[in-house]
Structures are given as structure tokens and as C-alpha cells.
């Protein structure tokens, strides 16, 4: 069939590229995870599960837990800031909504390194925030915020907040205004309408935004590296070490796989949840 041949030709270049330079390298990492490290670095093709056993060492469990804690905090803080912001945007006059969203996303388009660096300028011991607070007489000694977990959380929230606002906003947009009116007509106070109607119905956006921030944060490398300054290590930093200074590629591969496994589980839960909520909505409608 002619159209099938055209289809094949259309898909071929892109699919081949992704196959060779994405799927093949990823399969290779998958294979490395089950091999052994050579004496001088390198990879020896001897089957072994040792790398995965090592992932469960107390040291690495600790690092995964730290990463998960930081990512969870980043997701929660982003939602606490992002939900009311999205809600406020949805109640702006119609002509203001798109420009407001545009300016929410705009910072995202500038360089990630520079945006993270801006927080070093703000947070360091002689930085804008410390000197400002000292000038106002609020503190005597500079606060050590930079190179702590809090600094990493701030950096992650700063970078991923736009996604949360967008995702919550789109679920608020999908709300049926009649449902809200019904709640008000039946005498519910505005806060009650919000808690019992708006919030539950916008849950898909909340979950999607939260999971997105968590997934992007737990695998992040640059933010913990720059704002954690080697004091706080996340999984990404340990993977980096394995492929550079430690020269233990098989173990680095096993860590990468564990990280991706955690992300996959969360993404699957999120999609199933949002499908289920949509089904319930359909039944109710």
C-alpha cells in the first residue's frame, strides 16, 4: 500500500535516531548494571547482581531517602505557593489570564544555570538576603542557608513552580461553573465550596503538578550540585561520581536504573489516578 510506504518513510529518520541514540544507550546502561567493574575502571562482562545489592547499602539508602525528602518538600512547597497563585489567575479578568500565564512561564525559558546562580547571589553569607537582613538589624550573624537542603528546595521550587501553576490552572479551567454555582445556591459558604467542591475536582491537576515536580527534582543534578555545594548529595550527584571520579560504571548504571524505577512507579500511579478520577467525573456527569 502506498500510504503505508509513505508512513514508513516519514517515521524512519526520527525513529532511527531515537532508536540508535536513545534506546540503544539506555539498553546498554541496563546491561552494564548487571556486569562487574574492571580493575582499572571499565566494564567486565561477567554477570553479577552485586551492584543492586550495593544500592541497598545503608549509605545509598540514606542518599535515596534524602533525595526523596528534598523532592517531596519541593513538590509540597510548589503546590502551597502554586495552587493559590493558579486560583488567583483563574479569577483574573479574562484578558489578563493569558498574559499572567505567559509571565509565569517566561523565567523558565532562561538558562537553568543562571537562574540557579541567582540564588547563590541571594543566599550566600555576604549575599543580598544576609546583608539586607543585617542592615535592617534583624540578624547579627549571617544565616547559613546556602549549601543546605533548604537552599536546594528553594532552587527546585523556583525552577519548577511554573509547571505546577500551569497544571493546576488547566484543571481549574476544566471545572464546570454550574457545579460551583449549585454549591453556592444551596447555601454553602465560599470556603466550603472551595474545600468540598473546587479542591477535590482539581485534584488531577494537583497530583500531576506535584508528581511532575517530584520526578524532576529527585533526578536533578545541577541544583544540588550548585546550591548544595557538595555538602548535600542527591542520587544524581552519586551517579555523576560513579561515572567520573569513582570510575565504577556498573554501579552508576544500577543507581540510574533504581532512580528511573522510582520515577516510573510514581508516573504510573499518577496516570492511573487521573484516569480513575476522570472516569468518576464522567459517571457523575
Amino acid at each position, binding site marked *: 500500500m502506498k500510504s503505508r510506504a*509513505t508512513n514508513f518513510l*516519514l*517515521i524512519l*529518520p*526520527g525513529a532511527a*535516531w*531515537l532508536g540508535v*541514540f*536513545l534506546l*540503544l544507550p*539506555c539498553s*546498554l*546502561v541496563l546491561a*552494564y548494571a548487571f556486569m562487574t567493574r574492571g580493575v582499572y575502571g571499565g566494564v567486565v562482562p561477567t554477570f553479577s547482581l552485586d551492584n543492586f545489592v550495593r544500592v541497598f547499602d545503608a549509605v545509598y539508602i540514606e542518599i535515596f531517602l534524602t533525595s526523596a525528602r528534598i523532592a517531596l518538600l519541593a513538590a509540597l512547597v510548589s503546590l502551597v*505557593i*502554586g495552587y*493559590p*497563585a493558579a*486560583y*488567583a*489567575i483563574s*479569577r*483574573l*479578568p479574562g484578558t489578563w489570564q493569558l498574559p499572567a500565564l505567559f*509571565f*509565569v512561564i*517566561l*523565567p523558565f*525559558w532562561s*538558562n*537553568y*544555570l*543562571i*537562574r540557579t*546562580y*541567582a540564588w*547563590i*547571589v*541571594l543566599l*550566600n553569607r*555576604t*549575599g*543580598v538576603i544576609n*546583608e539586607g537582613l543585617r*542592615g535592617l538589624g534583624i540578624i547579627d550573624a549571617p544565616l547559613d542557608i546556602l549549601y543546605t537542603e533548604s537552599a536546594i528546595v528553594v532552587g527546585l521550587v523556583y525552577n519548577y513552580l511554573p509547571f505546577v*501553576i500551569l497544571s493546576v490552572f488547566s484543571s481549574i479551567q476544566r471545572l464546570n461553573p454550574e457545579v460551583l454555582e449549585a454549591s453556592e445556591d444551596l447555601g454553602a459558604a465560599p470556603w466550603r465550596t472551595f474545600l468540598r467542591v473546587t479542591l477535590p475536582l482539581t485534584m488531577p491537576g494537583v497530583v500531576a503538578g506535584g508528581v511532575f515536580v517530584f520526578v524532576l527534582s529527585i*533526578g536533578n*543534578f*545541577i541544583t544540588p550540585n550548585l546550591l548544595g555545594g557538595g555538602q548535600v548529595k542527591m542520587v*544524581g550527584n552519586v551517579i*555523576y561520581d560513579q*561515572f567520573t571520579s569513582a570510575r565504577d*560504571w556498573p554501579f*552508576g*548504571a544500577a543507581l*540510574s536504573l533504581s*532512580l*528511573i524505577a522510582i*520515577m516510573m512507579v510514581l*508516573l504510573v500511579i499518577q496516570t492511573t489516578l487521573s484516569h480513575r478520577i476522570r472516569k468518576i467525573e464522567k459517571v457523575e456527569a
Partner: protein
Amino acid sequence: MRRNSLPLTLHLLLTFLFLYGPIVVLVVLSFNASGLPTVWGGFSLKWYATLFANKKMLYPTLNTVVVATVATLVATVFGTLLAMGIERMRPSAKIDAILFMPMIIPDIVFAVALLGFYTAIKFTLGLHSIIIAHIVFCIAFVCAVVRTRLNGFDHALVEASIDLGASRLTTFRRVTLPIIAPGVVAGAMISFTLSFDEFVIAFFTAGPSSSSQTLPMLIYSMIRFGVTPEINALGTCIIGFSFLLVLLAQRFNRQGTN
């Protein structure tokens, strides 16, 4: 129209302060003659002068422009074709998952996977290996953007054009392309920005030679060295450039939908 209460409006304003405060501080400090973060020494362009006099800047900047341009061109063509092909097929969750992968996989994991792959096939590293890597995630983004554009596409238009005697190529040029053009341009803009800013993957696939250093790699090494007024100036230039690009893309997109 429901109005916002005062606390809600205040919260929105504070959110924008949080989003733009750090950028504004960076821009203001880049013009500060004293070079200190808290002492205003008057307006000065001297940090920009030092920055542009710095010869170290030249090649990384050129490298970044080359990488981003080539990656964008290739990815825009491949990604658009891929989107057209996939939209003509039955929907498949597996294909969607593969196309979603480059957007969600941690950059450090993709970077080490590629480094392992390049090493295994004894591929010489340099600018070309960075370009190859960037094309991967750029294809995914172009494909996603063009697919949303194709979603509401009426295939009867293509059939009508062919029935009226136009060749497939003419049909593509005169019917399909004008309809998907805003998506293609938006995809290209996204690709260029992402590639221009990308650090982790470039860092791992650039190889040992300093001749393939990109601008983000240079920025990273400067930041590791400490806070300097020069980085503030460089950051301001890059932020200004990105915002300009986004505004251009926005204008083009609006023209396309009108």
C-alpha cells in the same frame, strides 16, 4: 465575574516577586560599579566591557550557536516528519512512552548512558557528539508540539488537494505545511532554547578537548569558581537573549493563528 480577595491578589503579587526577584537582582548587580552585592557604586558598564574583552568567551559562544543551530535544524525536520507519520497511524501507548522518555529521563542518566554508548563503539567525542545527543531530546519536543497542531487537522483537505490533481509534494507545501507551520516554528524555537542552555549532557559528551566547550559549560566552571560581577553581566545577556527569542516566537505564533 468572581473577584479575587485581597489576600489572594497579594499572594499572586508575591509569587511574581519570587519568580522575578532573583532575575531583577542579577540584572541590577550587573550594572553596579562596585561589583559588590550590597554596595551601590553607581551605574557602570564596566563588567560588560570585561566580559566582552575576555577571549575565553568567544569559542564557547560560537560552539553553542553551532550546536543549537544544527541540532534545531535536524530535529525540526525529523520531528515534524515523525509527528506527521505518527498522527496517520493508530494511537499507541508504547510509541507515546518512547517519545515522552527524552523529556522525563533525568539528564544525568541520559548523559552517562550516551557516554557509555559512545565509549563502547569507540566514537570520537567533540561538538558532533553533543549535537547528536541534543537532537534526541529536540526531536521529542518538536514532535510533541507538531502533534498537538496536527490533532485537529482535517485530512479531507489533503484528499481534496490530491483529487484536484496536486502532487503529494505540492499538497504538502501548499496545504499541510501552512497549517502546521506555527507548530513547527514553535518546536524549532523550543529546541534552540533547550539546546542553547543544555549543560549536563554536553558536559559528558564533549570529550576531553577544551575546543568543544559550550557556553553553559563555561558558565558552570565560572560559577564553581565563585560569585563574580562578570557572571552577572553574562547572565543578564543570556536572559535578555532568551526573553527576546520567546517574545519573537510568541508574535509569530499569534500571526499563525490569526
